[in-house]
């Protein structure tokens, strides 16, 4: 059974984090045409020439045979209910459009669950304005008298929508656990960096962990590290990109704190950036500059800066 520490003295709330993915999806011919044609209130399906099977809404391949010899068609706006459920999103149903060989899922509007029966006739309800999406059809409503429709050829198909912006935000609450918990608690409450003694060599591991990565033996005691260290690698960032914390140029460096066997990545500031690669190099001695905020994260270290008195003597050697 688990030996993972079950209780520990530090009660840290989880780390909230959001990953925002700004996807730009490529719908392809079938879905791309569908999403433009709904603006003209035409409901586009696809017929696979080799299998003869019709899929509504349109797909670039036959769902049964995988055949890619597809011709686009106009589907009727009526069909039959083949199944339904209700979730927090509303009533969702599998619907077989007249003339189609496969079901698809859409919303049922203007009805409650008790009104629905498998086999009931339903009809598309168009949205007032087009958003070039499947939601141009708000959903389907019960339509007992809807005539049985037929699949028809699609004349003058619109050019497919080339791209669909699709932002997706994923939210997390990460547990710190006993080792990261103490690390960040010490940083936040005491401006103190603590690691654990490595069991595979002399030195201290940060972030601290229960098992040494290399020997897979239990790590040793907690150790306070000084907030001074040596740059082992650095890069001046000139590129702009999404998610950046500050405008370029700035320096990111790998810093080995004195006594640590691991390296920490942080920014280096407090220098004339036009001489960045001259003033910061592998071997440059640096010191942490603590921020006035105490958030219990690495940003409590505002940045590192070179220690002039330790760097001037050997500056020309590098």
């Amino acid at each position, binding site marked *: *059974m*688990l*030996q*993972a*520490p*079950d*209780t*520990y003295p530090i009660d840290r709330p*989880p780390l909230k*984090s959001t*990953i925002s993915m700004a996807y730009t*999806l490529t*719908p392809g011919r079938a*879905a791309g045409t*569908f*999403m433009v044609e709904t603006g003209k209130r035409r409901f586009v399906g696809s017929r696979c020439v080799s299998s003869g099977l019709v899929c509504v*809404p349109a797909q670039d391949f036959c*769902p*049964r045979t995988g055949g890619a010899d597809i011709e686009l068609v106009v589907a009727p706006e009526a069909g039959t209910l083949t*199944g*339904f*459920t*209700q*979730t*927090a*999103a*509303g009533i*969702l149903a*599998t619907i077989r459009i007249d003339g189609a060989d*496969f*079901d*698809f*899922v859409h*919303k049922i509007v203007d009805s409650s669950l008790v009104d629905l029966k*498998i086999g009931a006739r339903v009809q598309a309800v168009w949205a007032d304005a087009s958003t070039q*999406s*499947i*939601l141009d059809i708000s*959903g389907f409503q019960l339509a007992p008298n809807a005539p049985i429709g037929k699949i028809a050829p699609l004349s003058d198909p619109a050019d497919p929508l080339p791209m*669909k912006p699709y932002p*997706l935000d*994923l*939210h*997390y*609450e*990460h*547990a*710190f*656990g*006993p*080792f*990261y*918990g103490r690390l960040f608690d010490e940083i936040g409450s005491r401006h103190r960096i603590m690691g654990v003694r490595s069991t595979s060599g002399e030195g201290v591991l940060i972030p601290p*962990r*229960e*098992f040494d*990565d*290399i020997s*897979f033996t*239990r790590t040793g005691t907690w150790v306070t590290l000084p907030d001074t260290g040596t740059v082992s690698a650095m890069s001046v960032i000139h590129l702009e990109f999404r998610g950046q914390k500050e405008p370029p140029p700035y320096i990111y460096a790998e810093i080995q704190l004195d006594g640590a066997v691991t390296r920490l990545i942080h920014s280096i500031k407090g220098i004339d950036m036009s001489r960045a690669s001259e003033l910061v190099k592998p071997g440059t001695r640096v010191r942490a500059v603590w921020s006035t905020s105490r958030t219990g994260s690495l940003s409590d270290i505002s940045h590192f800066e070179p220690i002039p008195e330790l760097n001037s003597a050997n500056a020309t050697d590098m």
Partner: protein
Amino acid sequence: MGNPNRVAVVACAQTELRAAWSNAQHVDLISSTVSNLLKGSGVALADIDFVIDSGSDVLDGRSISNCGFLGAMGAHHKEESRVEEDGLWAASYGINKIAAGAAEIGLIIAYSKPSESDVSLFYASQVEPFYQRPVGFDHLAASGLQAQQYVVRGGGREADFAKVVVRSWEKASGNPHVAVGQVPSHDEIAAGEYVASPLRRHMMSRPVDGCVAILLASADVARRLSATPVWVTGMGSAMDSHAFAVRAPGRVEACEVAAKAAFARSGVDPRTVSLAEVSGSSAAGEMMVLEALGLAKPGQGFEAYGGSTAINLSGGALPADPIMATGLVRLAEACRQMTVPGDYGLSNVKSAIVHATGGVGMQSHCVFTLEV
């Protein structure tokens, strides 16, 4: 081409499965599980030829999350692969490596912390983005539609849903590896609010946090390491259409195909198998899986619980679903039941079926047969 080498599970370890391991990170759960696995196994880290792990970047909230977990897995400078499917697929990958003669000892790990994210977004990220996601179709809706079809076309009985859930939670409450808390009563379940009609609140599997690890070994090594190696004698996996609405309603065809492949390889007959550990996303899903595995007739999944095969003595996935690790937990549970059958009130245990599933509305399935 020679015959494949026989491969056995020689050790299993896992954390407790609980609603939230709020005071431990993935790495804390993983390193402690692996270290427990090695204790007394007769295997040192240096003996392990490869590590294969299962988890989900979307659930973990970091890309290629296994890279960050490498040290905790004992995988430093080892051959390591990640399988973005349930851990049972990772095990099948590892078994094939050993069966092919490419390795002798493998470490398989699966981990999950769904408590750190919104599970509905995890499933939403798997749904087709143009036609399905915008209308609100998700894993819940798929499971509800599937349950309705199971009753309408598959011959299942809605009244059995609550009974399956009660049974699962009662079994889980006797399982030291699952933190259960209060076992819901039949009436509480049967009158619970609908989450995806006809499924009510307890009828969907409960996501939990946890980690599980197993050691695989080739026949020669297994006989030296373990008094009771559990032989993996058959494997099969299959995936159904991504578009939920074009799948066969009322049954899980991909599970039938996966089971057929596993049975054909081993010769195990589901009608005489000693025990089964299966994963169901919902109460209806679990019964559909039992039918697909040949443990019950179509529409009579509930009958399987009263049959000669011991079904989900662990409680199964309904009370404890560590998404991505659920199937590997089933394998670990089945191995324990086969190595110490007396602890489970079993005798004369010879064979087992292990099942894993993944995806929206149980799109993919993996089936093992085990023998001792």
